[in-house]
């Protein structure tokens, strides 16, 4: 038996909560503040919020929204989207987020990860890595919401961010995102084996047993999901949900080796 963190990951686009499939076809879910309130009432382990439109619109993080969200979140909260400076990080942490998530900035300016780790501790520096198989079937890190391929193999980039001082990696499989096909265990294992910092697996969760598998087989330290926690089922009717403690215990924690 072992507790692992089971994290709803929420995407914000133009101020609203959305959910994607393969990083495309974003479906409007609702108001993010309201969703966080519901997740708080359900006593979720932790919550990750990523504003996927900030970088695209060349916009700074929306501090007033972060503050409002943090005011409703009496649990660990991580926030990503549009973060490019140490000062923004300082403000976001001051407003009550526990960690910041870097994606584009980690690719463009890895020094920012180091600076965050030095000033605020590595536990507050999270890097999210978006991965897709290219046409040759090789795993590659992608950027710009999965639109642009980089030359990095995921393990190589994961090691780089670990060396830079990141405390955690959120590893997203673009191919599995929103598909309910289960986690990409091979990808998760490759990266988990390559680094010593915790890897949070995301992309494809369809049932609680997928979480057990990605920890026991894929080597992940924590798990996250979007669709599973914002939709009632694969028919994608919106319903914010999260398992009760007893269910997490029986269906996940007791099966973790």
């Amino acid at each position, binding site marked *: 038996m*072992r*507790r*692992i*963190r089971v994290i709803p990951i929420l995407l914000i686009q133009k101020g609203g909560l959305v959910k994607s499939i393969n990083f495309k076809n974003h479906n409007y879910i609702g108001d993010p503040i309201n969703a966080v309130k519901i997740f*708080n009432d359900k*006593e979720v*382990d*932790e919550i990750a919020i990523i504003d996927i439109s900030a970088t695209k619109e060349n916009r700074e993080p929306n501090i007033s929204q972060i503050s409002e969200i*943090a*005011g409703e979140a*009496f*649990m*660990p909260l991580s926030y990503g989207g549009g973060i490019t400076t140490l000062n923004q990080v300082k403000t976001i*942490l*001051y*407003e*009550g*987020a*526990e960690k910041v998530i870097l994606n584009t900035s980690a690719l463009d300016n890895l020094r920012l990860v180091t600076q965050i780790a030095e000033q*605020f*501790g590595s*536990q*507050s520096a999270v890097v999210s890595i978006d991965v897709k198989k290219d046409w040759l079937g090789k795993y590659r890190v992608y950027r710009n919401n999965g639109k642009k391929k980089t030359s990095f193999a995921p393990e190589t980039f994961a090691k780089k961010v670990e060396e830079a001082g990141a*405390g*955690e990696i959120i590893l997203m499989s673009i191919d599995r995102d929103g598909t309910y096909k289960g986690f990409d265990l091979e990808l998760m294992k490759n990266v988990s084996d390559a680094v*010593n*910092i*915790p890897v949070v697996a995301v992309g494809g969760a369809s049932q609680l047993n997928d979480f057990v598998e990605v920890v026991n087989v894929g080597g992940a*330290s*924590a798990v996250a999901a979007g669709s599973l926690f914002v939709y009632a089922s694969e028919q994608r009717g919106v319903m914010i949900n999260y398992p009760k*403690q007893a269910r997490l215990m029986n269906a996940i924690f007791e099966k973790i*080796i």
Partner: protein
Amino acid sequence: MLVIIDYKVGNLTSVQKMLKKVGCSDAVISSDPEVIVKASKLVLPGVGHFDYGMKQLKLSGLIDVLNTQVVEHKIPILGICLGAQLLTRGSEEGSEKGLGWIEADTILFDQSKFDQKLKIPHMGWSNVNFNSDIPLFKDMPLASRFYFVHKYHMVCDEGADNLVSAKYGYKFAAGIGKNNIIGVQFHPEKSHKFGMQLMRNFITYY
């Protein structure tokens, strides 16, 4: 008035937000000795490196006023995370001396003693064991769990000072205390109703 001690280490707003949520409307964040001297309760938060924390506390010029208020005048103080570790004599993380208010040390998790393969830091939720006679844990919900993020943990000389324990690889002190001085390794401000109850108890019974 409750003062959350601001020595430029870590996130103080979430502590204040939770204190307000549980009805402590006069919780202020301050680094001013003249404000701290008027406090009826103190909270010492903090995240990060032990030596950095101690140095910041010295730089802020608050050590003397804290010694007077906490040791002589017995003002209740709650240390959180690094703030709890600073209550000990010192840490394997650095070479600075701690406040030394509790006969305890802070040591690195000994992975050779782990009964399963686990990464450090210990980051996540753990169930805790406590003595419910201790006011800090009064009316605490069953199967209480708290959120932890740490590589180092506290060890008390006297078992009686170990108020609450948790397990990560092995059993460790999740909270220590003696009289008016308490330190918890976990983050009550990030621990839902469990943290709320603990904060409520601190403001009510201490």
